[in-house]
């Protein structure tokens, strides 16, 4: 059983400061929320490098290879025909489709990769319980931290206030 403690901060600096503070105190589940990406936020909550570039590269290469193979197989292997006296396997004319397909598949990997990594779509999340949290996507800066027992919840609430949160609210886990 665990609770979610949310705090709203007036300024970016305070927010990130708080995030660092809490992580230093050994709270793993610290998250910041903002209407636009904050410089330094990733470091503050300690995120590792994203895998998406690797995915993109892989998708691109596999797409291109597949495209070239398909063209080669259909036109030069499976049923070669004399078309305008040109050789059945002429690499230059296969390039455009190879390239385009590479881009397409790569884009798919990025797009779906992103949602899978973020585990989206996710219709419900405890933070949505707090009405005030709606401002997070428009203009306010929020911070969330998870606690495992009521006493910790109590002390985290105070700590957030101490770190300068304008308002703090707790989302209790349903038993």
């Amino acid at each position: 059983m665990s609770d979610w403690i949310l705090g709203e901060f007036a300024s970016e600096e305070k927010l990130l400061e708080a995030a660092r503070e809490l992580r230093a105190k050994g709270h793993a589940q610290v998250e910041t929320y903002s209407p636009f990406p904050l410089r330094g936020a990733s470091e503050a909550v300690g995120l590792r490098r994203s895998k998406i570039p690797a995915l993109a590269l892989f998708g691109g290469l596999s797409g291109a290879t597949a495209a070239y193979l398909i063209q080669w197989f259909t036109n030069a292997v499976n049923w070669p025909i004399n078309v305008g006296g040109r050789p059945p396997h002429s690499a230059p004319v296969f390039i455009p489709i190879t390239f385009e397909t590479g881009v397409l598949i790569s884009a798919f990997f990025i797009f779906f990769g992103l949602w899978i990594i973020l585990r989206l779509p996710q219709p419900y999340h405890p933070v949505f319980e707090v009405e005030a949290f709606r401002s997070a996507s428009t203009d306010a800066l929020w911070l969330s931290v998870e606690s495992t027992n009521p006493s910790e919840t109590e002390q985290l609430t105070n700590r957030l206030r101490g770190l300068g949160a304008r308002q703090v609210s707790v989302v209790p886990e349903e038993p």
Partner: protein
Amino acid sequence: MSSSGSWPEPSGERQWRSIEEREGSAELRAALEREFPAGAAELSDGIDRRSFIQLLGASLAASAVGACTSAPAERILPYTRQPVGLTPGNPLHFATALSLGGRATGVLATSWEGRPTKLEGNPLHPSSQGSSGVFEQAALLQLYDPQRARLVKQRGTPRAWKTFLLDTSLRLSASAKKDQGAGLRFLLEPNASPFVADFRTRMAQAYRNARFYGYDPLADDNGPRGVQLAFGQPSDVQWDFSKADVVVSLDGDFLQPPGPHLRHARAFSQRREPARLNRLYSIESTLTITGMMADHRLRLRPSEIQLFALELVQELVQQPGLSSLSGVSQASGQLARSEHLKWVKAVASDLARHRGRSIVIAGPSQPPIVHGLAHAINAVLGNLGQTLQLIRPVAGVESGVASLSALADEIKQGAVEMLVITARNPVYSAPADLDFGKRVASVPDSIYHGLYEDETWEKVQWGIPAAHPLETWSDAQAHDGTVSIVQPLIAPLFNGIPEVELLASFLGVIDKSAHQILREFWIEHGPAAAFEQRWERWLADGFIANTASPSVQAALRPDSLISAIRDWVKEQQGQVRSTPDTLEVNFVGDYKVYDGRFANNAWLQELPNPITKVTWDNAALISPATARRLGLERDDVVLLQYRGRQIEAPVYVLPGHADDTVSLPLGYGRSGAESVARGVGFNAFALRHSAAPWFDRGLIVKKLSRKHKLAVTHDHWAMEGRDLAIQYAVERFEKEPNALEQLRGPTETLYNPVNFDREQYKWAMAIDLSRCIGCSACVVACQAENNIPVVGKVNVLKSREMHWLRIDRYFSGTLEDPAVITQPVACVHCEKAPCEYVCPVNATVHSDEGLNEMVYNRCVGTRYCSNNCPYKVRRFNYLHYTQNKPKSERMLMNPDVTVRARGVMEKCTYCVQRIERARIQSRIEGRAIRDGELTTACEQACPAQAITFGSLNDANSAVARLHRDQRRYDLLHELGTLPRTAYLARVKNPNPELA
């Protein structure tokens, strides 16, 4: 050997059944009035005319199924007994003959399970020699025309054939008792049928006072009269152009019908090769096919040509040994020296240099004197028996305008009680002044035997639907008198009555079929022995051997010619010269519809006119200078006034036309029930006068504000200095034989071309521009062979015509006196075809033997292939042209060729279906396909033998030899497409004296 056995004979009961359907067709008539107010409404949208015709055709055909004797499309039962010699899926070939202008051309018909689909020339027949013209090729479409007359009608009311027989026989016997048929007149389609000749004599016995007339508006009366003038005896003339080094044509378009034009074309074109090149001088008013071939062409007003002939005689007399012409030359007295004296001198000396090896020929439109002069010249040059033969006249009735006006007079005097018309639509084609329609209507008892319910049909008491020549038994004679038995390919589709049966009925024979009657006639006339075998042979050959009329000896007897010239000179003095504002009118037969009898034939209507490239119209032809003077340009509508009559016509400005002359092609502006012919062009017969049926002064041209858009398929005249259709003087060719080196052979390329030499065959074509006369027979042949649709005027105006094979026609030199060259262009089957690599779906690819194949059912219709085809020979089905074809026209389709649907590309296939048939045959016989065994449709039809098809891998094949010829070049060679169709440059033989 006719296939008519397969279908049941017509029965009176069935005929009656069809009368209800007739009402239906009457409604369609009404619809038709609405649809074509003088061919204007159809221009609204791309599909009107066609879809309407199809509609009409379809419903008529539907009604026909009940009415007509056979509907093969319906018969799905297998043969219980297989007809002799018939293998389903393999066509049979039957020999028969088609007549035009009273002379027969032998043809071979291809028949699929009793369904004729293609006509070819009969190689054994003297006037065909295996080739055919546009009219022969298009005859089949007429056979299947759903708009043909279907019912015997008395003043529009359907009657049974038997009723007609009863009715007439009564009145016949009455008139026989009264006055031996003093009131009985026949107006016959000119023909040299021995049976009809015999019929006339027998009628003369039965009805002593009955009389016969013939009528064909384009018949050549002047020729025979000219022979009479020159030789004092009647005879027909046989020309042999293969022996003539010099040909002088006085308005004589000898490469076109009437006459044995196929034979002429064959012989003439043989002499157009550099080795044995002849020289053609054409003196003519309008540009003709013959004129396009001429080495020197002099354009004169029609009336000036006689003067030219006389000058020529006077010039020839100067030449040594030709003094025997002096009488003739003196007769014409002192002529006003004309501006083309240089010409006359050149021609004269050239003729004098080629005695016995020259021809002077005059055209039907020229008066007898010109013919007489021509023959006189031929005689003194010793051409008689060399380049021309006189033969005993082939039987036939005189059938010119004169004969028709004689009949008209008789009717006016009320001498005619019963008039039987088998001539094709004389009411339409009669000179206007005869007012023949009124005359016919005034005859108490008139009978018309016609293919259509046309202008004549409307005027008569009795309309009898005629059986098409391919539906009936009869006989005919070729230009040289050779007799052919005409046999049917199919039982009458629309209740047509054979002419033989109609005529026989006047001799009381009413219970016999044409077949019986004809057999009996031939059994009578001829050795009884072994008749059956001979009969079979005649049918198999398509003609009766050794029946040509014998040649006759004749010497020049110029007296009557001289007196004729004297008279002419006298009346000339009386005459006033034409004032500048009146022009000369010049009536010409049409290359496409002849005298209008083929006007309902969509193939011919859509065929671009060989000279003007106009489709679906005729036009008043004038010279550029005259056009400038009158402020006219193409498509302007003008009012033509002549002898108190007037018509409106669109103008076509034709380079090389004589000044101050207007040529009016006959045969258009039909108003009969045929909806294809209706509202197409203007009717020049409405201006024709029996006093001067061919040409005359006194035409007044007034420009109207209206315009009439002519559907021209070939707008641009010049070649823009590109090496497309190449022609040059023979001297230059001899001086620099390698002039064309840079226009053939391999070109720079990245890829090595595919090597086809290891294949068994390497199909290729060669087209000799020296031989091609541009007659367009190949175009129609291709259309018939490959089920090519007709798209109608609206779509031709949008330049969507579908012809796989077109004939490009380029002018060079001055607008006034241009040099003309024609060039047939179809798919040239490039080895490195630009069309192929741009097709996204492999719908056009290359075969191992080098055919550029079009896969219709794979085509999605991106049309990129056409964009990338530098020859623009691909055709696209922009609309569903083959949708709802009339049932009867579906029978015409060649089962070996796919009928294409909407949205697919199509083009020349080198007649791949013929290649495959030849391949099958050769494999059955375990051999290779022999050279010449396989011909494409265009090649087979071509009377000039300009097209050659074969395999390049056979080094000795004709096509391989032509590909090695020094005149060979590739069209657009610089593009490196390696076309398989090679062209041979045209060589000309100009006279240095005229240079």
